[in-house]
């Protein structure tokens, strides 16, 4: 009876570069929930980019003086701005839940002096910081604090 084969028995005499096919998005991506979620996560980048420019506009107007600021603030009441800001809020929550709840608890360093915490604890810590920051920012901007 033959013994077990040598693991390198079928290896080429010389190692060549690994050939890999370029990654391609499957044509059926819309029907695959995991790819759809991944793409939606990427698409939030468009919303974030526009949100950054909207805040730049607001700060720019604040620097121009009281009239420009009041005009900029009142222009946010336009339905298009409200719809965009609602979309931004949905995007931000989606990114937060996916990143803080799903990714970051699994991204703890496995080496070094800091002990690896249970994923649930890390998730609760990050959600706690996020909620606290949101609450403090809301209270300051609404005039309750400071």
């Amino acid at each position, binding site marked *: 009876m033959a013994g077990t084969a040598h693991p390198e028995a079928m290896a080429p005499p010389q190692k060549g570069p690994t050939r890999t096919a370029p990654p391609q998005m499957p044509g059926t991506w819309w029907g695959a929930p995991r790819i759809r979620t991944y793409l939606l996560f990427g698409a939030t980048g468009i919303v974030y*980019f526009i949100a*950054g420019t909207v805040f730049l506009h607001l700060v720019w107007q604040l620097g121009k003086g009281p009239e420009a600021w009041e005009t900029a603030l009142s222009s946010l009441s336009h339905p298009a701005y409200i719809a965009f800001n609602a979309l931004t809020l949905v995007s931000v929550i989606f990114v937060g839940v996916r990143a803080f709840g799903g990714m970051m608890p699994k991204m703890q360093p496995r080496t070094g002096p800091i002990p690896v915490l249970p994923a649930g604890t890390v998730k609760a810590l990050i959600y706690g910081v996020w909620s606290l920051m949101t609450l403090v920012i809301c209270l300051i901007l609404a*005039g309750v604090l400071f």
Partner: protein
Amino acid sequence: MKHLLLILEPVIWLLFGAGLALGTMLLTGFVLVVGLAIPMGIVPPEALNYERAYGLASSFIGRVILLALIALPLWKGAHHVRSLALDFGGAERDGAVGSLLYLAAAGVSVLGIIAVVGL
């Protein structure tokens, strides 16, 4: 160009990561109040009248937060849009697309610095 992007990758990833984490944490409160609650009349606009808004924004912490609020989402956005372009457009145009997006993010970030410093 692709080579330059590879060299800059640690910086880009740092800004992207900060945009994803800090940008998300900061944006939530600002969008809730400035983008929705004040325009919809839930919070009176006097809460952010010019004197108060300017006072908050022109403090040191206010400037740092505003700069983070402008710049970090841009870098998160640029990197994610590049990733989308890579998924659908392939790797051939990645150098040009990535450079264009990061240049736009850098340009608007510089404008953000000018706006925040000028307050």
